[in-house]
């Protein structure tokens, strides 16, 4: 039991404390940028009262917006109060998948900046099969998902091929491939096959209802089967890494490519396979986002999912479970931030500050150690550097 506690403490303490710190600092930012607070800054008594209520209200709104909002139960079932949680999960779902893509690559010693582009291709594939063909429901959604996976895995695998064959650094290649993907989707949305009839702006037709991922809690909640796919994917990644020869090779190459090569593991093949599977995961994220949430392809379909995925993977220490937790945290922040802005006029941008601070603290364990006077806090800085050294 003690051992178990220690292990949890070791792996979760730094992220946990980083989150706490980020909230405290952002809270100060909220307080000191609030007009009502600044008005009474002269009188300490009032100031403390107003400041603490501003602070509390902002975070209560954030919490209510992310998990449970009692307002929503008025005149409805209790379940409806969990609408925000459904939203959090819906937002986190594509992020989990994209995050798993980055995490898997990390484990294999690759820094996959290309989740964004892979996400886009997953979305394109799923969208096209979704709106262009007609199948029976289960078949249609499966084929649409597969189309996304295949396109994105080719897109990702190409990076692996380039690296294996020419030694091109995956960071540079994936960044460039993101640009290509970004402009490709702009272009393809203007082609006849993708443009929605009667529209000239970049918007594809809605996917057919048969291609939609089913809602899990009825039509009033957006929670869809994508989260199940994402969780399955997380289990898959864990299984792949820890229980299969392929995962063994991934981890071996990631931990010491030179020793893996000396022992007869082909680093080139492993690199290609890693990037192919990473691409498939990010592409699945894009597919799920289209089929479960957006239904229609737009030029900004990928939002910042592919880039947030990097942060999520870092925060989750490149472990499947950690990645899921980190993605849920980000989903909660983003969803809760909306309510925070709507209810308390605290700008949504505060959420970005919180995210940035979390990453900052995670990346500088010495700072957290110093603030909390903890001696043996595990560092995970090596993770990023490993990726860069490739």
């Amino acid at each position, binding site marked *: 039991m003690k051992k178990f506690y220690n292990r949890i403490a070791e792996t979760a303490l730094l992220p946990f404390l980083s989150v706490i710190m980020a909230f405290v600092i952002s809270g100060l930012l909220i307080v000191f940028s609030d007009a009502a607070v600044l008005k009474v800054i002269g009188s300490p008594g009032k100031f403390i009262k107003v400041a603490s209520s501003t602070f509390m209200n902002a975070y209560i709104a954030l919490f209510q917006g992310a998990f449970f909002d009692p307002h929503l139960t008025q005149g409805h079932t209790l379940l409806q109060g969990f609408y925000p949680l459904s939203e959090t999960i819906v937002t986190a779902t594509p992020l989990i998948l994209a995050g798993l893509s980055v995490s898997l690559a990390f484990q294999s010693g690759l820094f996959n900046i290309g989740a964004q582009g892979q996400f886009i291709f997953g979305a394109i594939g799923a969208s096209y099969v979704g709106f262009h063909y007609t199948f029976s429901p289960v078949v249609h959604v499966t084929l649409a998902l597969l189309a996304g996976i295949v396109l994105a895995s080719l897109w990702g695998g190409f990076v692996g091929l380039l690296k294996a064959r020419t030694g091109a650094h995956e960071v540079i290649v994936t960044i460039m491939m993101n640009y290509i993907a970004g402009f490709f989707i702009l272009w393809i949305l203007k082609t006849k096959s993708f443009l929605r009839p009667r529209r000239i702006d970049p918007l594809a037709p809605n996917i057919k209802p048969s291609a939609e991922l089913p809602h899990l809690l009825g039509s009033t909640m957006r929670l869809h089967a994508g989260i199940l796919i994402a969780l399955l994917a997380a289990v898959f990644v864990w299984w792949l890494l820890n229980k299969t020869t392929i995962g063994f090779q991934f*981890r071996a190459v990631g931990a*010491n490519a030179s020793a893996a090569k000396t022992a*007869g593991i082909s680093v080139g093949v492993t690199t290609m396979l890693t990037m192919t599977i990473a691409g498939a995961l990010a592409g699945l994220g894009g597919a799920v986002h289209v089929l479960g949430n957006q239904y229609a392809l737009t030029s900004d379909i990928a939002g910042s999912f592919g880039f947030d995925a990097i942060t999520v993977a870092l925060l989750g220490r490149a472990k499947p479970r950690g990645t899921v937790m980190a993605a849920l945290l980000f989903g909660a922040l983003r969803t809760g931030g909306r309510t925070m802005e709507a209810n308390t006029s605290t700008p949504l941008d505060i959420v970005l500050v919180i995210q940035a601070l979390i990453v900052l603290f995670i990346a500088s364990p010495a700072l957290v150690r110093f603030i909390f006077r903890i001696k043996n806090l595990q560092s995970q800085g090596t993770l990023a550097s490993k990726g860069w050294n490739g």
Partner: protein
Amino acid sequence: MSLELRGVTKTFGSLVANDNINLKVDDGEIHAILGENGAGKSTLMNIVYGLVQPDSGEFLVDGNPVTIHQPADALAVGIGMVHQHFMLIPVFSVLENIILGHEQSTKIGSLESSAAREKILKLASEFGFHIDPDAIVENLSVGVQQRVEILKALMYDAKILILDEPTAVLTPQETDEFIEIMKKLRASGTAIIFISHKLREVKAVADKITVIRQGKVVAIADPKSTQEELASLMVGRPVNLTEKKTIHHDNAVVVKVSELNIADEVGRPLVSNINFEIHKGEILAIAGVQGNGQTELANAMVNLHKNVHGSILLDGQEIVGLSVNKSLHSGIAYVPESRELDGLIGKFSIAENLILDTHHEQPFAKGIFMSNKAVEEEAQKKVVEFDIRTQSIDAPVSSLSGGNKQKVVLARELSRPVRLVVACQPTRGLDVGAIEFVHKRILEEREAGRAVLLFSTELDEVMTLADRIAVMYKGEILSIVDASATREQIGLLMAGVKS
């Protein structure tokens, strides 16, 4: 000047690195500190040089107590140190390196160097160093770089010089010259603390030998003791150093390498015209100074190197061009030069490291599914068979000592059906006990009829194990000589002199 340590104790957590150590180094004395890796030699020297603070103990210089809290204090009382890994800036000149940290400006603000230059030239001629103060350090040989380090210490009037494993990086000839330099220093009144695990050198030069084991001084030995006696003192049990060579005559050729050429990425030759054969039950040692193409040749034996032309026949089958995996599985055991970089994955457990090569084969995997049970069973078996000292087979391999790491590599590489063993620097950085184990194991392979290709820069090791010795120099094999060749003959070949 004399230095005396009294009751020096240093603990790291529960580990007692130095336990009540007393040491007396007299004026103009070469005092060897002998001990296995981890015995506490380095800690002790770091304490003397002010890099580590002892828990208790005192220093006396010429009978007067002194306090040493940092290297500057040590330098001030006349203690200098030459580290095993040189602290030189490669792109600076000798002069610049020597005055580094003591720079003085002239009146017009430029670097004052004429006085330093004079002093360097004076010291160099006094001790017979041939050093150009304006040479760039990275262009100098390792032996000369070491002299720069020594000059650095002498420049600031070191009267006691700590030399940490100084001969580890030198050729036999350079080692001989180095021993002469130590003698000259002694003659000039400089005391030397000489840290080494090379018994022959210690015996050749030391006036007094302090043997440390597990943080304690276990003996003050006489240099006239035999190597076996010294080794036994180091490890605390009887050691049999000269291993028996049972003669094995079998004319079957296992490996035939012909016209092998290796080039770098842009086609410049790294290794040229290599031809040799190894017979069953024969050890061919490739001797030579580090960096003369041995690494590339070793890599080529298992196709780790691209741009290889020529032929390597293993029992008549061509292996050049195979994948690494196929090469290994065609019957080659490969012990790479660097355990940490190429042999093992530090983060992986011992069990995982033991199956790096065969993880995809029965019984460890069925299809892509790995069987933890089979992996564990294999690990339990190997840990016993190779006497790998560890708490758990799940411990990361990085937690093992160097010797145990090497045992993991050996255990893995010898677990496949083997016809040829390629062992590169198999005992580098190991202590006496581990060296004994590795040597025994290599000889066992030889006795079992395997061909062994041994790469070693340690002449002692080569002389002990080899049946024949090939000496590499600048990418070529200068000559292949019989085991009866003398050290001098081989030393000359290593320096590129072909008689």
